[in-house]
């Protein structure tokens, strides 16, 4: 008698799971044909791409890959860039997918030191910019795109005050730009970290801390993430305007101005924001074949495809990054509204690896505390 509700409930649970399974299957899985569960065994027609939340590709381009190779791509977004990589390190040997896309030069050494990738030399690597090939000896990772983390400015603010917007790191500590800049926490945000590394590259191991002391004295504001800095505090973005943001300078990307144009309705004639091209740090993003991938052949085909012209040309308007393959044309939106960064700051991955944690620690106690 005591057990009867238990039994009844067990039946109910089984029924519930059954019903919901039916409900869930009815709605989906018609497009992918992947069935439920993982990426399948050997000879599977599905290849799983694990990436960060910012990954995007046109459906048409992914379909072209299927037409070309017979593999269907399943995308698994796995959090922000750092989080997504850390998940791959934790699940090393039993990965969630076949290819991981989205490790950049600031975290590259962490990925390589943990040995999560199987070396593979992608077809077409010859046409990829040499400067982006940071693992050219072993081909554990393949460069896919580049982007620049730069200070963006609110054009209207500076025009109204007849003040020239800042152009370089040096400008940002000048009294004219006091209390104007908002940046992200270098400990938790990838543009925040990029900006810190940019200053370290510009002023060297000894000079960057002094620079940040000046920046702090000049009223730099630090918030936790890019969303908040850009959508709430920055006065030039659509979200920031609505939120009455009061900072006309923000650490964002060189490609942010075209995005402001693309997602405005009606689209304005000029971008409302501009880029201080002397404050940029170059990010390079890589992809690699995961060790223990269930579909290695499909993964290799996908890596080849990621540096094919078709995918490279599709990237800018989906992820707002620049192609790494030489000669791929940028969309008009980029050439018209975007900034060309002639000489971005760069740092070797080994140098970043050796100093990153310690720099972030000193930065935190210097700026946040």
């Amino acid at each position: 008698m005591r057990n009867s509700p238990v039994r009844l409930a067990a039946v109910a649970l089984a029924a519930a799971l059954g019903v919901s399974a039916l409900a869930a299957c009815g709605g989906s899985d018609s497009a992918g044909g992947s069935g439920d569960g993982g990426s399948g065994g050997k000879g599977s027609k599905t290849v799983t791409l694990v990436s960060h939340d910012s990954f995007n590709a046109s459906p048409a381009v992914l379909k072209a890959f299927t037409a070309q190779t017979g593999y269907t791509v399943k995308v698994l977004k796995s959090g922000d860039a750092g989080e997504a990589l850390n998940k791959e390190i934790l699940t090393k040997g039993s990965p969630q997918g076949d290819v991981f896309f989205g490790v950049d030069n600031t975290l590259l050494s962490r990925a390589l030191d943990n040995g999560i990738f199987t070396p593979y030399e992608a077809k077409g690597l010859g046409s990829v910019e040499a400067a982006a090939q940071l693992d050219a000896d072993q081909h554990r990772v393949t460069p896919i795109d580049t982007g620049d983390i730069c200070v963006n400015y609110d054009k209207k603010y500076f025009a109204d005050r007849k003040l020239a917007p800042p152009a370089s790191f040096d400008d940002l500590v000048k009294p004219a730009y006091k209390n104007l800049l908002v940046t992200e926490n270098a400990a938790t945000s990838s543009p925040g970290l990029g900006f810190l590394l940019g200053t370290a590259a510009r002023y060297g191991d000894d000079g960057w801390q002094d620079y940040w002391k000046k920046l702090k004295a000049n009223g730099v504001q630090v918030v936790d993430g890019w969303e908040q800095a850009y959508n709430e505090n920055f006065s030039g973005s659509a979200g920031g305007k609505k939120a009455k943001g009061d900072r006309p300078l923000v650490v964002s990307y060189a490609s942010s101005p075209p995005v402001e144009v693309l997602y405005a309705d009606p689209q304005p004639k000029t971008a409302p924001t501009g880029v201080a091209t002397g404050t940029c740090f170059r990010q390079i993003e890589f992809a690699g074949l995961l060790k223990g991938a269930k579909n290695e052949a499909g993964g290799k085909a996908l890596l080849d495809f990621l540096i094919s012209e078709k995918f490279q040309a599709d990237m800018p308007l989906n992820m707002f990054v620049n192609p790494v393959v030489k000669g791929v044309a940028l969309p008009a939106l980029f050439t018209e509204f975007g900034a060309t960064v002639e000489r971005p700051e760069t740092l070797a991955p080994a140098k970043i690896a050796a100093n990153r944690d310690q720099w972030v620690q000193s930065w935190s106690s210097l700026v946040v505390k």
Partner: protein
Amino acid sequence: MAVPLAFFAVFFAYPVAAIVGRGLRTGDGWQFGRLAAVLGRPDILGVLWFTTWQALASTALTLLIALPGAYVFARLDFPGKAVLRAVVTVPFVLPTVVVGTAFLALLGRGGLLDELWGIRLDTTVWAILLAHVFFNYAVVVRTVGGLWSQLDPRQEEAARVLGAGRFAAWRRVTLPALAPAVAAAALMVFLFTFTSFGVVQILGGPGFSTLEVEIYRQTAQLLDLPTAAVLTLLQFAAVGAILAVHARTVRRRESALRLVDPARTAGRPRGRGQWALLGGVLGSVTLLILLPLGVLVERSLDGPGGYGLGFYRALGSVEASGGTFLVPPLEAVGNSLRYALVATLIALVIGGLAAAALTRRAGPLVRGFDALLMLPLGVSAVTVGFGFLITLDKPPLDLRASWILVPLAQALVGVPFVVRTMLPVLRAVDARLREAAAVLGASPVRAWREVDLPLVRRALLVAAGFAFAVSLGEFGATVFIARPDRPTLPVAVARLLGRPGELNYGQAMALSTVLMVVCAVSLLALERIRTDRSGEF
């Protein structure tokens, strides 16, 4: 008891133990020395100190503001009461990304306070405290108010007839009856604010950090698993202590109180005092809850060409999201509803079984089990999420890529609500009724159907509503495992907020409003079927 125990072992204890173990075990065995090392760090001690005092302050402030509300909702009748009660519960299930945005609009630069008096509270601890009141107001109103509405007012009247003053009568009669409920509510608020994550991260800025935020940073960003493991154990200990105290107050509350139908205790406000109280409560609810919610609605309508429904229309198409999603954002509504439905079913079965087991047995073991069921409320989502990732990766439990993982994780948070709602009702069912049915020849199933079911049906519905609403708003664990082609509402909102451009921002606000409405409607439906005995929340 076996089914819920197995459920918790597989989907909670095992993953959490695995991730903590990964942090504390190296090739040479367990590294318990790390405990002392991490606990000795001044920054960690600072985090612990801040976590504790902000939770204490939040709890005190919430009680101060919400207790008058509990009285008003319990004892006074006014038009629109049911709708308002549903609305004040909406924040409880809203994702913090959304709430953070609303609060910044009010308390930040150019916000209402700034324009009126030039006061800015963003990145101060006040923003955190007020947001905590916003989130937890309903916990106090529902726990304390629920009981208050069922206390027989004639007892207080009797005291007054016997010569006690109004205040003395309240202090001697009503307060002792309410005290355990107040304590239980305070402890729940303390638990929720102690483990606060999104509010602190968004409103506090990088200068403030709670244990939960620190666990997230150490795990997801720095991959410092040993430190994360120590912090997780620390939070475990704290939450365990809170729950132990909570369990004791709840038990004390089960002393016999004469409860009556809430419909008979409430009346229209009389006298200047009651009107003033009603006014004060309505005012504070408007300022603290309706205003932030209103800001979201306002922003969702504020398109480039003036107010309109443009952002809502954009939710229906894939193109407008610029490939942010593989499906139109509006499909997230369907996903959310489907996931929440399955999560509710699982939570009901597991929670119902657990509650049944808890009613029928006693002893320290069972009480421990009771506390265990509450534990998921206090353990960080990132710990559970990463735990899932490294444990559920082999057959027969290769669930990482399966859709069922989302409702399973959501059910984990829903179960405590089901247990706490069902338990008092089940305990009130007289076992003799069941025995009588058996003596009269009813089969066990029939006895259950004819005796228990009618009595618990309404409690079951209320529990279902709570579990459903919690699943709908669950973000932390879902964001870890939701499949990109099937985002839930909170996940979709977060993703839209993560991209620049007016259309994305507007759509995020519109989708938040949709989530708000879906929550409010399910809670309103719940209002219609309130039980005669209140739950423990």
